[in-house]
């Protein structure tokens, strides 16, 4: 057990600190992320890539910084940006999910073409996975693509496509081999959002905003070579991508930040002239949450160490999304309860204005329910924990699914 930094990491830490001192003023505001990055954000992102604070381990040939893999370096960089409350760069599905997927299974040409522009924020991606009839049962995707004269012709519908209304490109899971068993009939295509026949309709959610879209495909043409790995390999590629999404959702840094905001809120909210942090019922809930956040922070250090040592964390990684979303929701719940009646006025703003504090907490509280459902719902996570983590047997397959529940 050694929680101190090595000389190499201390050196990096002081580099990051001096970068932040020198350039911190150019940083866009932390938060946001509901719209296309503006000029200021793109300039900042480019600066971060140049200094190796984004895309650090991505080879230079693909537009990255080319540092050898070292998760501890990423952790040092993230901690310094968080501590200084400086924007640590774009987090979006292209950067967090497609880039690692292409690095793992893409062709050299695909990596050269897409990784650089994606990490610089010049190309924004959306994810075409879920469909109205295949959510948790993702492998049941029915959107189909058939090969005609060197093009895939795509027809069908996707749902929950966040950022589709401003994205440039989509990574799409669709059925190309209708005669094969369901997991073997899928392919993973890359397509332009400008393609004729593609229609994006905003999907208003329970937050009152439209964080997601429905996307409709009518004879959309996609050049045949815009496929990742190959025909029938879509399920394999999709799982490579999902692995990265689940880690993105259960972020301990986000919980720590939210806890700090919550402590601030309880200190500064009064009922009958008493600060809520002095009211036992609120304070006890806060303390319970503080203990849990401490546990997840320590757990995160353990995962980080295991990643650095090349140890498979197994079930310890599988619990992150389920445990993290539940804790995040309970943190937001206490904030909403502390705000009480005065926190009920709710005016979510569009993409170009900031929400007031009470609305922000209420959006977190409501949006977190979505996080429990998206990226593999928490019940799916519990299946994964039970079956892959604890080695419990799967539910027996239903032989005639159509006859049950629809009969």
């Amino acid at each position, binding site marked *: 057990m050694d929680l101190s930094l090595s000389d190499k990491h201390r050196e990096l830490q002081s580099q990051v600190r001096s970068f932040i001192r020198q350039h911190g003023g150019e940083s866009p505001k932390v938060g946001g992320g509901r719209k296309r990055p503006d000029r200021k954000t793109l300039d900042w992102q480019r600066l971060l890539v140049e200094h190796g604070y984004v895309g650090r381990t991505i080879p230079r040939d693909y537009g990255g910084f080319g540092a050898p893999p070292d998760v501890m370096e990423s952790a040092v960089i993230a901690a310094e940006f968080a501590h200084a409350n400086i924007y640590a760069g774009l987090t979006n599905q292209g950067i967090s999910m497609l880039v690692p997927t292409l690095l793992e299974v893409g062709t050299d040409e695909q990596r050269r073409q897409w990784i650089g522009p994606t990490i610089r924020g010049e190309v924004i991606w959306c994810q075409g996975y879920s469909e109205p009839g295949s959510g948790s049962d993702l492998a049941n995707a029915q959107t189909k693509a058939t090969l005609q004269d060197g093009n895939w012709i795509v027809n069908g519908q996707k749902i929950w496509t966040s950022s589709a209304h401003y994205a440039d490109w989509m990574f799409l899971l669709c059925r190309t081999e209708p005669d094969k068993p369901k997991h073997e009939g899928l392919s993973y295509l890359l397509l332009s959002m400008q393609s004729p026949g593609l229609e994006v309709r905003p999907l208003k959610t329970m937050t009152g905003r439209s964080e997601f879209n429905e996307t409709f495909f009518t004879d959309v043409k996609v050049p045949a070579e815009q496929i990742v790995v190959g025909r029938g390999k879509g399920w394999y590629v999709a799982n490579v991508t999902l692995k990265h999404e689940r880690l993105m959702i259960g972020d301990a840094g986000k919980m720590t930040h939210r806890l700090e905001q919550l402590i601030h809120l309880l200190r500064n909210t009064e009922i009958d*002239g008493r*600060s809520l942090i002095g009211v036992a019922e609120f*304070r006890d809930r806060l303390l319970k949450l503080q203990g849990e956040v401490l*546990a997840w922070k320590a*757990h995160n250090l353990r995962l980080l160490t295991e990643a650095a040592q090349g140890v498979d964390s197994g079930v310890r990684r599988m*619990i992150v999304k389920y445990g993290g979303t539940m804790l995040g929701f309970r943190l937001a719940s206490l904030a909403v309860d502390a705000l009480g009646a005065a926190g009920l006025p709710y005016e979510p703003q569009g993409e170009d204005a900031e929400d007031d504090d009470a609305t922000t907490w209420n959006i977190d509280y409501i949006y977190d329910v979505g996080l429990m459902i998206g990226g593999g719902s928490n019940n799916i*996570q519990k299946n994964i924990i039970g079956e892959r983590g*604890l080695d419990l*047997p799967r539910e027996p397959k239903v032989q005639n699914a159509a006859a049950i529940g629809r009969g």
Partner: protein
Amino acid sequence: MEFALSQEQRLFDDSLRGYLADRLPMERLRALAEPGDGFDAALWQGLNELGLHGLLVPERFGGAGLGMLDAAVAAEALGNAAAPLPFAGTVMATLAFMSGATEAQQDNYLPSIAAGESRFAVGFAGLAGQTGTASVTLDGDRLSGHLTAVMDAGAPTHLLVFLRDGTAAVTEASAATLTLRRSVDRTRPLTDIVFGNVRAERLDAANDKLAAARRVLDAGRVVLAADTLGAAQRMLDGAVAYAKERVQFGRVIGSFQGVKYMLADCVTMLEPCRALVWYAAHAQDAMPGEARLTALHAKAQLGDVGRDVARITTEAHGGMGFTDLLGLHYWFKRISFNRQVLGGPERCREEAAELQGWTLQA
């Protein structure tokens, strides 16, 4: 940065677990629980040979000179085996002598702790936030009064008592009147103690005796948290194994999502607790600024998660879990015991609130 057990710690853990599995099978545990007096001389001696009792005693006094993380590793293994052993008392007494005793007192007591010749029951008159009554006065070297529900009471040779202001006093167990009480955890009794103007040694070499007393108390709490972690993990492992064997409706019950989700919940609650216990134990030695807060949260969090895991895993065993036959209840009750002694979750969180200045704001 490396947040992991060292190779030496893993080897120590393996040898301890191997020894306990060998020496403490279920029938032996039952035999020890029958009288309920909480002491097994052979086990005590065997663990002495593994170096357990002198774990924290500095090498110059014959110990291993190790730290609280090592103690937490040991406590987890002891909880896993439901070992009847006054380990928290040994850890707290060692730290009390290291922080509050004169050199002569250290010379006198620490080697005998390391050699497994002394066993300490440690009582807090106030400070720890236990229920029960406690009224102890120290007049010069004379100790009077009484304490109830003192833990680690299995065959103590010495008693270490902390007064409300942090003053500590040591006396021989034979000088006081001890009334052993079998507890809900039949492997670990409690004792009520009456001191009738008995001679005691003051431990008052610490600069800030209240802070030193709290460090001892917090170390005891970390040990109990680690013990609960080991006990809860044992119950979870048992429930997972049972769910893979037990067949109902023509399927093993672990294939039903109802059962699977109960166990998935347990692992999701418990696994971050292991990191919390390690972090808190490490903080006691290496991060003074975080030591109190993390010890309090570890004790509180393991108290709550331990209870949930104990209840859910017992339930997963169905009717068999409720019987005496499987013996699951030894771990269930051990977890209950650990929750209540040295201050329950409510008390620990209240102390954490005070520590952060959250109780003063009106």
